[in-house]
């Protein structure tokens, strides 16, 4: 566990100020300490034989084996191993995968969810994929979600925020073997609040005589760089409207936009909730995740989520949708498909969540928008800057 991590609050330097070691320790050492080893948990279920008894009810997934837990927010004991307690405040990118065996007597949709208590609120879970199970093969739900934890530091505390991976499936025992098992990853990506907008740190060499360090240099090179890295562009929006998608014969080169109107977080105000367009505020590599969720028609057959990218780095600069793959869907039921890519974007490039559905009877796909028993599966887009 890193020694006494803290969230730096970089100072503003004034002309003539003496650069002293304690100030640099507080701002630079603290930033390197936190971001070099950010809160990170990765775990698997490898020994538990976890049964699901209730059809379609989200069940907390036991994570009995830790790969890494550098802030000690998780324990492997059976009483608490489903839960990761926040040990440090901030936004966390959570990713889960849950394999479900082939159904024998009854097969229904298989879904993965990320849930928990955020910022002292009520327990909620948020769906990732929800797709038909198989009678012949393992099915696997995957999910991603940004979660905010502000009440932190007390493992097991009733007032502490926490995160749980859930699975929704038919009665079975989850698959866990040497090659395939439930996995949960939780990693800190951003402070709960910070300064924006800033530019990507240039990290210049320090001036050598006769040049000298100025307050402007210190503010740009130390304060702004640390503030940017602690609070980079991170956005998540969820679908909140009421609309449907007509059947298409095949995934088009540019998919239909799914605008997400409900803001979860947007540190740089980069997503337009009306147009559904994320515009990169700074250049870099962005983690992008999209999930398309809704109710299929009576002949619902196929579903795909995509990311429509307009960038000179892709398709010669023309808008093009990078699809997450076409998957089968359950008829007359809630289904959700996902796509996940890391995209190199220049400032001003755009990313849009896109959807495709095919229905042999031409029925529409109606987006779900309100949380509820099945409404946990809502379309959403996550974009987070990761690298220059």
């Amino acid at each position, binding site marked *: 566990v890193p020694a006494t991590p803290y969230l730096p609050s970089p100072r503003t330097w004034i002309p003539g100020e003496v650069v002293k070691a304690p100030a640099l*320790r507080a701002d630079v050492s603290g930033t390197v300490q936190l971001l070099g080893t950010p809160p990170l948990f990765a775990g698997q279920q490898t020994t538990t034989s976890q049964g699901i008894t209730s059809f379609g009810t989200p069940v907390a997934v036991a994570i009995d084996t830790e790969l890494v837990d550098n802030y000690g927010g998780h324990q492997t004991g059976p009483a608490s191993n489903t839960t990761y307690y926040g040990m440090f405040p901030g936004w966390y990118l959570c990713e889960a995968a849950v394999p479900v065996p082939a159904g024998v007597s009854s097969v229904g949709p298989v879904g993965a969810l990320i849930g928990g208590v955020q910022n002292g609120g009520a327990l909620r879970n948020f769906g990732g994929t929800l797709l038909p199970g198989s009678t012949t093969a393992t099915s696997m739900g995957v999910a991603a979600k940004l979660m905010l934890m502000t009440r932190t530091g007390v493992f097991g505390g009733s007032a502490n925020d926490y995160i749980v991976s859930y699975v929704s499936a038919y009665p079975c025992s989850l698959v866990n073997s040497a090659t395939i098992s439930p*996995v949960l990853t939780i990693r800190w990506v951003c402070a709960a609040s910070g300064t924006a907008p800033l530019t990507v740190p240039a990290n210049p060499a320090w001036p050598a005589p006769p040049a000298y360090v100025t307050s402007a240099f210190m503010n740009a090179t130390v304060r702004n760089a640390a503030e940017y890295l602690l609070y980079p562009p991170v956005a998540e929006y969820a679908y909140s409207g009421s609309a449907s998608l007509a059947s298409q014969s095949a995934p088009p080169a540019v998919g239909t936009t799914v605008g997400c109107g409900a803001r979860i977080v947007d540190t740089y105000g980069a997503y337009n909730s009306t147009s559904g367009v994320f515009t990169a505020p700074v250049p870099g*590599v962005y983690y992008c995740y999209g999930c398309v969720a809704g109710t299929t028609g009576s002949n619902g057959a*196929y579903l*795909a989520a995509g990311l429509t990218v307009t960038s*000179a780095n892709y398709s010669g600069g023309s808008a093009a949708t990078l699809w997450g793959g076409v998957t*089968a869907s359950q008829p007359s039921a809630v289904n959700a498909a996902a796509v*996940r890519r890391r995209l190199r974007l220049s400032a001003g490039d755009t990313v849009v969540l896109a959807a495709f559905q095919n229905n042999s009877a031409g029925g529409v796909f109606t987006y779900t928008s309100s949380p509820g028993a099945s409404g946990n599966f809502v379309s959403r887009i996550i974009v987070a800057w990761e690298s220059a």
Partner: protein
Amino acid sequence: VTGVTLRGAAGFATAVASSSQQVTFPASLQAGDTMVIWCAAGKPGLFSMSWTVSGGTFASLADSALTGAGSAQLFWRTATSSDAANAQAGTPYTVTAAVSALWACAAIAYGGTSSTYRFDPPPAGSAQVNPASTAVTVPGITPVRAFDQLLWLGFCTTASGSPAAITPPAGFTPQFSQVSTGTGATPAVGLAAAGMAAAAAGPTGAQDGSLSAAQGNGGLLLAIPAALPGLPAIPAFPAGYGPAPGDFDTWVQAPLTWLTYGTVFRAELENGQPVTAGTYTVIQWDTILEDPYAGWNGSSFSWLAPLTGWYEITVTVQYSVTSAQVAAAVRLSGVYSATYQLSEYTAGGAAGMWGGTSGAIVLPMVAGTDFIQGIAWAGNSTTLRSSNGSYSSIEITYVSQ
């Protein structure tokens, strides 16, 4: 601003027809620096010039675009301690032309450059030789790293009179004063180089220079990325100590630079690949989008960890044929070896569609030992997609020490 530093640059030009010149690099050259030699000649229609360099093994750009109305050739290498000693002693390297003629060359050195990712992207196909014009048309490139050092190389040639004055593209600073050959024996040549710090990655657009008079010309644009720092220690900032600027580079610049760059590998499969039913098939990534730490091995289709720590690996696989379950996986080999299946779906899609799935996992990797392969699996034999919008992909990001 860039971490790349110009050590020095000099131009050399023959006064009369000659088959060789001796060039020297700046005395400040250090081991690990990037050494560049750029040669150009004229005489259109009679020969395509080529050069060799003695005194060290230089890589050379074999690019048909560099011949035509004139000829040019690029050489580069990573400086060794012997090169540094040569530079300090003023020991020259001999550049030899295939034909005795008037020709010019430049020797340029940059410090603080990456030893694993020399050019961003590799320069093949990015040069151009143009017919007589006042515009030195140079195609743009698409660096994937921010804060590269851009190097613009240009020349002009004329069969009569003196070479024109070369003006580099806007924003570029000459790295040395233009050099020009004598006149008369063969077409005269003028040669120039200019640099600019790039603020961001992404397409540069065409970077055209200009001439004071219409002449045959050519050019090449390079992006030289800065060295990537290794894992930083938490800086201590000792009190009561009189630091030098280099101490702050170690305490501040290096760790913050390291934190600014997280993504270490991205690749796609764009040409398709068969997958045999029921077997874990190593995906033969054919398009490396970025690999600044040079971990990619194109023979084993694996990526070797350059730094010890925790990495997130994301794999997306997309199949042309449906009606089978499909899966994405990664195989970690090294200190601990295992295959991890990341996702699996019952594939969907009628004619004209395809199946696909994506998953991610965080794994520990030991520098120089552990390597990752992307894996595809399918219930029925199939092929991975080869269409834009449905390429399979792998992305590896360093997430924690």
